């Protein structure tokens, strides 16, 4: 036989089996799969999509990447990766395939190549950094600009052509950046067509008791061990356990676009109309070597980019998908999610809940289908034919009026706040509690609505109610992870410290 089977067989079996990846049970969306744990810059931590309460004819998308950024971590801090293609995608005709997407590409400039740190100001004759461009920006030794590209079936066009879009650097400290909030505000750009964009480092708005979750769901006694008291459950503003994200930054891309850009016919529709509902997700991709030299050949139609991660609904990959499938889930497209249907319809976590006495509905869990199909209650106007394939998309009914953020409920849809998760997702939504309750059967009826919760009910940073809806980055110089007295959200607790036992 002329062809000899590749000899790289048996030895590499041993090699790879011994290096079999493992992944935690869940970790928000931070490092949720082996592939993203290895590629932090391409790790999407959270994906948000909601109708802007201040502009109800606009939708806000927030794509956060690069988890657990320690504010003190100089000298180069946290640039976006110029080799990663960041994309926000929208399906408007319910087939699980993007109809419009927005691409973000970053470029790094080194302004002071002889200086040993990325940012300097108020020292050695270099003025403090007070601007992203021009006078006042001399101390930005490391700076980044980016482009925004809109891609539809009709073509590709760069948004904001002619404008220089600067990414907001992290908050180094008061000597270098004496008015960081004002500096960060300069990173908000109004583009043509009613589009607004921001990119930069912010305080991570996500909140979770990660330590308890990682320790095999060993939630704090003060929170009822994972089943909240009525008082804690009804509290949207205070925490009863430590928030692991407190004091950490994250890189964020925020885009606000008119709803008319996101619907099939370019119109705004009432909530009862199927056309009001869109499916959204974010992806990160890297240029990859292709099998064949001509990537546009007919065979397999490989792309120049290989997807590293996607994120639609929060916690799907963490809570639902088995470890042996997480990378495949991350790198595949939502339209192919039928292959994961067994995970969706019979989640292992539900079995675990049942084993510890929490009532859960029997499998198959059709009550979870609203998370992966276009059906009521998120899409009350959808017929069976419009349900689309099983696809992990963050679905948003753009016809449901937004709730003013000051009165938004952390439990979103489950608390009667229809503008919250799983109808889209806002930074204020407590998706850990909502998702856990959904897995336990909350969507199947009140019988299954056990008040599961980690006791962390609110973000460590005060979430702004206006664009970009995230707080400026924590200061490196003034940094603290707020584990002690004064931790945000813990004011009601003895000595202002959320209990850790």
């Amino acid at each position, binding site marked *: 036989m002329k062809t000899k089977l590749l*000899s790289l067989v048996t030895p590499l079996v041993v090699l790879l089996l011994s290096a079999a990846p493992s992944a935690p049970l869940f970790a928000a969306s931070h490092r949720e799969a082996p592939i993203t744990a290895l590629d932090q810059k391409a790790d999407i931590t959270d994906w948000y999509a909601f109708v802007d309460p201040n502009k109800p004819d606009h939708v806000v998308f927030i794509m956060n990447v690069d988890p657990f950024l320690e504010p003190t971590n100089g000298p180069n801090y946290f640039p976006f990766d110029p080799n990663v293609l960041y994309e926000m995608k929208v399906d408007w005709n319910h087939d699980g395939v993007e109809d419009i997407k927005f691409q973000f590409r970053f470029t790094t400039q080194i302004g002071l190549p002889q200086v040993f740190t990325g940012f300097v100001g108020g020292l050695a004759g270099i003025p403090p950094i007070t601007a992203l461009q021009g006078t006042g920006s001399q101390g930005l030794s490391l700076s980044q600009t980016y482009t925004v590209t809109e891609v539809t079936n009709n073509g590709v066009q760069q948004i904001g052509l002619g404008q220089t879009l600067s990414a907001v650097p992290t908050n180094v400290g008061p000597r270098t950046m004496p008015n960081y909030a004002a500096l960060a505000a300069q990173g908000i750009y109004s583009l043509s067509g009613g589009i607004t964009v921001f990119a930069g480092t912010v305080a991570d708005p996500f909140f979770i008791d990660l330590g308890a979750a990682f320790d095999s769901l060993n939630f704090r006694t003060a929170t009822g061990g994972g089943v909240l008291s009525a008082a804690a459950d009804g509290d949207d503003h205070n925490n009863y356990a430590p928030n692991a994200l407190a004091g950490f930054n994250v890189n964020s891309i925020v885009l606000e676009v008119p709803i008319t850009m996101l619907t099939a016919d370019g119109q705004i529709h009432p909530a009862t109309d199927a056309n009001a509902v869109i499916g959204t997700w974010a992806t990160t991709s890297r240029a990859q070597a292709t099998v064949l030299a001509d990537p546009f050949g007919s065979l397999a139609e490989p792309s120049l980019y290989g997807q590293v991660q996607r994120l639609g609904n929060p916690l799907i990959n963490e809570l639902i998908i088995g470890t042996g499938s997480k990378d495949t889930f991350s790198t595949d497209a939502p339209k192919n999610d039928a292959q994961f249907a067994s995970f969706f319809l019979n989640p292992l976590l539900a079995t675990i809940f049942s084993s510890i006495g929490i009532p859960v509905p029997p499998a198959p869990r059709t009550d979870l289908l609203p998370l992966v199909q276009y059906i009521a209650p998120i899409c009350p106007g959808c017929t069976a034919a419009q349900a689309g394939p099983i696809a992990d998309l963050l679905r948003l009914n753009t016809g449901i009026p937004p709730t003013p953020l000051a009165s938004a409920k952390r439990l979103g849809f489950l608390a009667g706040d229809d503008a919250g998760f799983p109808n889209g997702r806002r930074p204020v939504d407590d998706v850990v509690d909502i998702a856990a309750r959904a897995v336990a059967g909350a969507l199947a009826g009140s019988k299954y609505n056990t008040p599961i919760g980690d006791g962390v009910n609110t973000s460590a940073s005060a979430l702004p109610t206006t664009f970009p809806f995230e707080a400026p980055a924590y200061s490196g110089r003034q940094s603290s992870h707020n584990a002690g007295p004064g931790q945000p959200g813990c004011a009601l607790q003895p000595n202002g410290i959320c209990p850790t036992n």
Partner: protein
Amino acid sequence: MNHRVAFFRVLVVLVPMAVCAQTVQTALLTQLLQRHEFTQALETATLLHKQVPDDLTIRAYLADAYIELGDYEEAVKTTQALMNLRPGNPLGLTRAGRLRELHGDNAGALELLHRAYEVTSPQEVSDRVSLLTRMARLQLHSGSVAEAETLVNTALGTTPDEPEAIGVLAQVRQAQHRNDEAIALLEKRFALERRAGNLFTLAQALDTAGQKQGAAKAFADFEQKALDESDRAANANHELADYYVDYAHRPTQALEVASRELRRRHDVFTLDAYAWSLAACGDYVQASLEIHKALAFGSKDPVILRHASEIAAHLDGQDWSR
């Protein structure tokens, strides 16, 4: 059936729910591929891939099965996903290198194999020798005899008795017109690995060197050995068909052997053997159709191209001849 395959099959039946079931099935898959039972390997790999889609080794084996069966479209898809899951992983790079080679892109194949070599630990001696040998063969097919010699000598410097590397060095010596050395190397290889295919190469070398008597004896031994293996999965049916056409001038037997192999797989080499046998039987029209299939993926294998050219010449296909 090979004892190890039988053993693993029994294990799979006995412990289907055990924790080690996947490991056992992966071991079975390895055995199936090594024994060239590609259809069963594809079935097993597909099943395992559904159970653990993130397992790179199983994906690599799935790609191997597709490649050997000639389903190149699925092989490319599987290999691309394998490379995307862990960029730069040697399992993906080696499969992609093989596909590029079959696609006629020797330079591209060399690039990937070189990268695979760089990321393979020096402690993985057999893997590195295999990669050096493959790179040497590609260099030789590209006309870079000196580079091929350097690479294969590096491989043999580590593992002097590696049969595949000895075979490539013999090809290098033939390209350098050092036929006696080539024959000595091929004799050594056959002594180390008494496969019919190795005997055929030796017989060809003897024939080329004008040692007609020795060649006749080697061809006769080869035919007997190849016929003994012909119904097994791991066989020398490609070589046997070539022998019947080019040396024994028994085209009907060539077509019978090639047809039998074609029932198992549709890779470019089987399609070529079938087309060449058809041509030898005078059916140039069908031969042309079959050689088109062999060339469709882009192969620039010199033997296949020569066959295609001669078939086209008989059909007055000037374009093909060029």
